[in-house]
């Protein structure tokens, strides 16, 4: 189609992709030329621009009353249905709600009528309190002693986070197990993983192997000393850098239990 053959009917059909930036350069120029010379189509273009902008805004203008629930790992197949979602309010949801609420869109916040404005003010107070608490915790973490420790032949910075240190022998054995387990994940050595895991974890690994097998190389950025869990098990957190996550922001949380005198990994979850 050339500049001379573009008529109003052709132009109207192309207005929507023209506004969306989906036309090729030639078509885009032809529509622009036509709009510059046709008042009727130019008016139609202005209307459609306003309408499509309003529609794009509209899609994000409904804030659900509750944050939607992510099923627990053990309930992947038991999806909550019906209206169960209304009754669940996880602590983590507060962060998600604040981050996607009107607080992050000042233009909306200014327009909000009461009582939303009051809620916004309350949320701001909560956010300020959370920021203060985060600052305190950050200071606390920075004060923690970090020392280098040789675990399984690898020098790993270890952070003493356990309030009541365990006997060195137990601590070392569990840290070594955690390191061997993670190494086996990256070498994709399923036999070794099975040997180091409880029956429960073995069945979960069989069910979703991709959740547990990693690829590429891994660097152990930091490991905590072992602490006791409330149920009598042990917890150790390992911060890692690998080919995909190279900002040390990836962490594995391992739960370990003692069975017949041996330590076994009962869960190994990724944490961001």
């Amino acid at each position, binding site marked *: 189609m050339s500049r001379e053959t573009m008529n109003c009917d052709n132009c*109207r*059909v192309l207005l*929507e*992709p023209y506004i969306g930036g*989906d036309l090729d350069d030639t078509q885009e120029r032809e529509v622009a030329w036509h709009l510059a010379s046709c008042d009727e189509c130019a008016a139609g273009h202005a*209307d*459609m621009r306003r*309408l*499509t902008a*309003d*529609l*794009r*805004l*509209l*899609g*994000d*203008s*409904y*804030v*659900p*009353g509750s*944050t*939607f*629930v*992510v*099923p627990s*790992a053990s309930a*992947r*197949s038991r*999806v*909550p*249905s*019906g*209206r*169960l*979602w*209304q009754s669940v309010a996880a602590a*983590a949801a507060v962060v*998600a709600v604040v*981050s*996607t609420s*009107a607080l992050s*869109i000042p233009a*909306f916040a200014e*327009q*909000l009528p009461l009582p*939303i404005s009051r809620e916004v003010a309350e949320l701001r107070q909560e956010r300020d309190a959370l920021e203060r608490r985060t600052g305190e915790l950050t200071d606390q973490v920075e004060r923690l002693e970090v020392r280098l420790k040789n675990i399984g032949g690898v020098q790993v910075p270890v952070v003493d986070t356990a309030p009541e240190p365990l006997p060195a022998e137990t601590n070392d054995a569990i840290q070594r197990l955690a390191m061997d387990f993670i190494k086996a994940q990256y070498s994709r050595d399923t036999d070794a993983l099975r040997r180091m895991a409880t029956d429960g974890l073995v069945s979960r690994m069989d069910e*979703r192997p*991709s*959740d*547990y097998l*990693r690829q590429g190389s891994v660097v152990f950025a930091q490991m905590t000393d072992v602490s006791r869990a409330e149920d009598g098990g042990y917890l150790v957190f390992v911060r890692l850098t690998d080919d*995909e*996550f190279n900002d040390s922001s*990836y962490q594995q949380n391992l739960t370990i239990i003692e069975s017949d005198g041996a330590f076994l990994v009962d869960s190994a*979850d*990724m*944490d*961001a």
Partner: protein
Amino acid sequence: MEEHKLVRRAMRGDREAFSALVGLHQRSVYGAAYGITRSEWDAADAAQETFAEAFDKIGTLRDPRRFRAWVSRILVNKCNEAYRRSKSTISMAEVPEPRAVHEFVGPEEGLDLMAAVQMLDDDHRTVVVLRYFRDMKVDDIAEVLGCPAGTVKSRLNRALAKLNAGMRQQEGGREREPAVYLEVAR
């Protein structure tokens, strides 16, 4: 963090990453479901079921950059299921709503626009919602709906023309209101 990196993490079982994705998508998924189903409750159900199924099946997603289109496909299916459920359910009584399912935080005219969207017929409503609420390309919408891209384009154009006409009518109605009031007062 870029969305596709969160998707990769979620594909590896990272629940926090998936929660972050829910946070990013929940408004547009709910808004789209509300546009399609025309019911707050059905929309909430469809959105919840969409995220639950996405979480359950994210391991089957081949390209993390297709997450938006993939979730939208699940969403359309869930909205269709909600529609079938509502057709097969006979309401025995009007159940009072315990509280609002959502909060509308856009400009006031947005309520009229949503009402106009919800008055479109099924095919037109769905393409408008996917295109503008879910920010999808025409080709992706065609893939989700299983129809040619040309069909999506023509539905979009017809739907926009109807919406434009509907909104002009509403604007005209609003402009006339003071005159009517004056006549009554006199």
